[in-house]
């Protein structure tokens, strides 16, 4: 029952999409983790085609362009007068990664102060957080730290993937943008996030960003599942795979440092 329609052909991912910059990427491997590739192959030929789903939340200041970013990718539309989000918007985007169906739940939260108190409800259980700022608005970059801190209260900082995304790149003159990127990459490094700069107006890097997001979230959730199942196999002893835990990290994560 309930056979899913095939995934759109332009939502199929076979290779690991690369980061925006090598330096500010979550990891620098050029292809999917071998274990993930192996597991997906086994799953494709195996009897259980487990369908996977991940929750992504999008946070950031009022009118930095969170909804526009999602609409550009999910509907390929752009309307800069899009109404302010009340509470939260929701989109579901389906992918096929390494032959396995994968869905992203995108929760687009409101930037307004009025809705801050309820946002935590939406934050729970996220696998990735997209923190959005406007590259033309320095204050919005400053505020990303606070947005992250709020979002992390509801999630496990050690397992959630972070993306710092600068929007409205088309409005930023090249010389000015270089300076902003320098600051932004510093912030990204502090929070151990992957940095991206996009334009929802022109579509620059939007698709690339979401593909990277989907691929890394997928990889993360497959690895987490592998770890869980191997822990179960061993029985009562839960072995901690130090190397896998730090898969994305070059140094030990100290989230507390950037989020007081």
């Amino acid at each position: 029952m309930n056979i899913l329609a095939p995934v759109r052909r332009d939502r199929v991912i076979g290779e690991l999409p690369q980061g925006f910059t090598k330096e500010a990427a979550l990891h620098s491997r050029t292809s999917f983790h071998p274990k993930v590739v192996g597991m997906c192959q086994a799953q494709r030929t195996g009897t259980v085609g487990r369908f996977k789903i991940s929750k992504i939340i999008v946070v950031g200041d009022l009118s930095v362009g969170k909804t526009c970013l999602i609409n550009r990718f999910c509907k390929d539309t752009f309307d800069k007068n899009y109404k302010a989000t009340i509470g939260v918007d929701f989109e579901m985007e389906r992918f096929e990664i390494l032959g396995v169906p994968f869905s992203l739940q995108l929760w687009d939260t409101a930037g307004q102060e009025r809705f801050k108190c309820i946002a935590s409800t939406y934050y729970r259980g996220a696998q990735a957080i997209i923190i959005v700022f406007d590259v033309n608005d320095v204050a919005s970059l400053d505020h990303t730290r606070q947005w992250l801190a709020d979002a992390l209260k509801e999630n496990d900082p050690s397992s959630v993937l972070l993306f710092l995304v600068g929007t409205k790149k088309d409005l930023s003159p090249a010389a000015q943008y270089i300076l902003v990127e320098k600051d932004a990459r510093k912030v990204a490094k502090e929070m151990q996030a992957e940095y991206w700069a996009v334009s929802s107006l022109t579509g620059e890097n939007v698709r690339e960003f979401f593909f990277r997001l989907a691929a890394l979230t997928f990889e993360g959730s497959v690895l987490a599942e592998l770890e869980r199942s191997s822990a179960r196999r061993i029985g009562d002893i839960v072995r901690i795979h130090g190397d896998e835990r730090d898969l994305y990290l070059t140094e030990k994560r100290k989230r507390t440092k950037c989020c007081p």
Partner: protein
Amino acid sequence: MSLQKPADGGSGGLAGSPEAEEPEDGSPGRCLPPPVLPWDRFSAWLHCVCVVGFDLELGQAVEVIYPQHSKLTDKEKTNICYLSFPDSNSGCLGNTQFCFRFRQSSSRKLSWHCLLDQLDRDLPIYLKKDPAYFYGYVYFRQVQDKTLKRGYFQKSLVLISKLPYIHLFNTVLGQIAPEYFEKNEPFLEAACSDVDRWPLPVPGKTLYLPIMGIVMKVRIPTCHDKPGTTQVLQSMHQADSQISIALPTVYEVDLFRCFSPVFFHIQMLWELVLLGEPLVVMAPSPSESSETVLALVSCISPLKYYSDFRPYFTIHDSEFKDYTTRTQTPPSVILGVTNPFFAKTLQHWPHIIRIGDIKVSGEVPKQVKVKKLKNLKTLDSKPGVYTSYKPYLNKDEEIIKQLQKGVQQKRPAEAQSIILRRYFLELTQSFIIPLERYVASLMPLQKSISPWKSPPQLKPFSKEEFMKTLEKAGPQLTSRLKGDWIGLYRHFLKSYNFDGWFRTRRKEMTQKLEALHLEALCNEDLLFWSQKHTEVETVDLVLKLKAKLTNGEKLPVKPGTMEKLKKHIDSIILAQPEDLQGILTKTGSM
């Protein structure tokens, strides 16, 4: 099949657009126009959300109605106020969830009711909307709060809807109410805006409903589903309840748990509900009364219970006087009550179900006899069924044994409920099949349909003739139960349930006849006919055809029939003199 999503002109996006899935499941040729106005989608699910508080001076009061433009009459508000709070002494400390049903005080038109009617058409009969009633789904919180005068926080969050989807709305309330009580209005605003992003409640499709950070996956049944095959949605992804939950049902209650206090009498209760006998459920709290009433109403599914039923009924209800007056025989209704006062008010009622706290199964219910009505006391009467009713059918010991065994073996409650539901379904089907078969024989023969005469009439229903069919084709063919089936049918034929069932069947069959007639008409050479007849007759024909074109929308005609009809009309008009053409095009109900 197009894999591209339709360009959705900034309408906010159909959340988890169901079109992406099960494309062959939809009904082709009946594309629903996407509702685009704000609150359209919300209204397809909910009428409004109310917050009912308790004011020390005023008593219950509706504090908030959201969206603000929703209309409720004063009478409706009063009903909602009283029905949203428990009215018994039991206390209900903590959180209590229950549901009620109340009469709408005036009929109002929804802005796009046609669209909702279309959705309604594909629903099983027992889930179809009743235009005269609303449901209220309540999450009531009563906790100690020293900062408040009298030391208690008492408030209800209430969803008002036309849809009888108790499990869905209870789940929604469980998601939003606890946090609403802490975060207040922005939370309510956001939750309502989530609902306004839901896809339409289309039967038969898998719907993804985002609410406050999680996605509920649901499927509303259709009238085409085979009865008894609950299409359970499988949770296809990792069981992460923080992200998504798949609801196994939108409307069903936990049948076994509800009936466990009166376990030995289920078959008698089935008869009482089937016959539309006046029934009252006296329970310690509204959550037990409402669940039990809904369980009773659903036990005759796929038959619809046509009389009024109130999962939770209070002395303040507008219908209180009508329903409890001693001067008339008790009405054919099922009431769920908690106020001990009712034990006195409804003393004269023929059948009373008294339940204590519904316990989680684990105990084996002991054999209990039906209790005599005179033993019913106002307070602390023992749980059980108080009646002098003698069932028509012999008791089925097997189902009792099967369920008892299940209790001993610690079979999960869901499995017990499925067994019980299947038992009721088979019983109801055994009962109704002979009626269905007889009613089908009332249909005139296909050959009696002539395009040039009005559609033939159904033969009238004759009780005696129907009774005669029972000898050879009675329920004994499908049920091993013995007893006075004839007596049961005789009683049933006098009930509201039969009346409602037969009216629905008759309407369907009449429409079928009209559809067949229309198809036959469209297969004729109408232009040729009109050329052989006078102008007056032709004009008359065109007007009649035009009337059929407007009424035909509701008929179950073969695809293409209406297009054919339109072509006939156009070609006849075109063959007329020019002045007449103009008049004919304009006249009629186009």
